[in-house]
């Protein structure tokens, strides 16, 4: 069972990393989501695998035997919620970028770092980018 899960995690992480390395914005974000799922699966595996008994102490007893480890489940739940929020944000961000730039190619996104002019000095900022109105 552990090996099966390990194989699943390996496949998930490889798929995610392959997509993340893509130049396509949407694929990159989807790849990150899949890597996130792989990380969650890994967290899930960090408890013991095997017992399906709920970690609830019966009335009158003080010690649990043969129960599942509840901590990784709490950790996974936290990670899923955080990952979900980040995914929503990044999808909106990517859609906005594609909408504004009419391209989904990362190589065309050189707005924050415009490519060099003569190779010795970086290009001068456009007067519009310097203007007070543009920065306030």
């Amino acid at each position, binding site marked *: 069972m552990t090996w099966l899960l390990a194989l699943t995690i390996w496949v998930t992480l490889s798929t995610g990393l392959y997509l*993340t390395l893509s130049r396509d*914005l949407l694929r*990159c*974000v989807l790849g*990150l989501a899949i*890597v*996130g799922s792989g*990380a969650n699966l*890994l*967290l899930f*595996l*960090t408890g013991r695998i095997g017992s399906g008994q709920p970690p609830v102490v019966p009335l009158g007893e003080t010690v649990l035997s043969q129960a599942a480890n509840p*901590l*990784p489940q709490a*950790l996974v739940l*936290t*990670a899923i919620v*955080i990952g979900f*929020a*980040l995914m929503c*944000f*990044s999808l909106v*961000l*990517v859609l*906005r*970028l594609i909408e*504004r*730039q009419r391209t989904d190619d990362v190589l065309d*996104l*050189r*707005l*924050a*770092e415009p490519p060099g002019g003569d190779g010795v*000095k*970086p290009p*001068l*900022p456009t007067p519009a*980018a*310097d*203007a*007070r109105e*543009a*920065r*306030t």
Partner: protein
Amino acid sequence: MSHPALVIAPVIIPLSTAMLTAWAYRRPALQTAISLAGVLAFLLAAIGLLQSVDAQGHLAMQFGNWEKPFGIAFLIDRTGASLVLITALMGTASLVFLLSDADPGSRHPLTLPLVHGVLAGVSGSFCTADLFNLYVWFEVMLICSLGLFAIGRRIDQLDGTFKYMALNLVGTLLLLMSVGMIYAATGHLYFGALSEAYATLPPGLALALLTALTLAFLMKAGAFPLFAWLPAAYHTLPAPVLALFAGLLTKVGVYTVLRTLGDVFTPAPGLLMEALGWIAVATMVTGVLGAAYHWDIRRILAFHIVSQIGYILLGIALNTEAGFTATLFYTLHHIVVKANLFLIGAIVWFWTGSYDLRRVGGLYAARPLLAVLFLIPALSLVGIPPLSGFWAKFLVLQEAIAQGRVAWTVAALLVSVLTLYSMMKIWMEAFWKPHPEGALAPVQGRIWPAYLATTSLAGITLWIGLAPQHLLAFAQAAARSFNL
């Protein structure tokens, strides 16, 4: 204030301020008042916390009164408390600077709640003693900083946001996976229990786990070769937020490397520390060379963040009490200096209307006091005595020489010379040469809060420089309490 409340104050106060400022969304004046009151309360609490921690060694709290090692714990020692205080100071300086008209950005109503969210994330990371909780604070920081990048809505900001997000997300996922694997190997997340369990781990497994964890932290710290997100995005931010990020965010990554390799997982594997030393040298060199190419003040300074991270990591890689002392001293000095340089850059923008050095000039003739104000942090960054940077570099290099690390020492000294070149470039172009259009155009706007913030930060730099013994004694006490 009683102690239990003091331990959670660094997190509770910024979080409540974030909530209250979000609630005052439609009333800018009220929102600003709440924000300033919140950050001043944070500052007072941080001072109180530092005093108690200095008297008692450390303060701890187990949430929900679970016995150690179960449950989530906060444990604030001298290192954590001093970093919380510097976080509060930087928050105050940035929020005061935001009152001026020097590049304040769009003044979007969500700016203030997000800034307080970042402060909560940063100080949460400094306080926690639980590995998974640390991951959560990293995510709080990441989400709030992404918001601050994106709310400007300019296309270059969105572009920067994407690059910042994609690379940082890989970092946090790597962190999450390493935390999971460390839990699987040891069965613990609490620092104290991890420290004990580490001794029983097989060396090969320990090296693999710690390498993954350190790699994730180094990505956050902006170390070579994983710093691409930093110069790609930082310069798109409005100045006060940029100064806050430049001062604090990468330093959280550095702090976590120090905490894990210097305090929790000790003695750290020698191979990892050796690698960290060379990474530190590569970080210094690439950062300073990147800065030499640029002509935009913000982009020059952004690359210098990377370069200075190298010096701080070098202190950790030396792996002795003196090395950790130097790291803490360097971090505290560097946060103040770096944030101040970005803020002064924004004042230059205010008077001249551009950040590009080819478009500005003549400021020494027009504003001689601003020129002096710039020289204090600039020369401190280089390490000219008697400013604070000299003592910081002296401490790192003294220990490097004592350990016979000639290559690391020579590299660090050469990088200092190149740093001097960058700072003199800004000095010659922005202050010394005449303005390209003859004279400065007159500007309208409120600038006194900007001067208030930058002068206070310069005062701290001067204080550390002229009387380093106080901070040095404190940093030594902090490093001594580490679990070496």
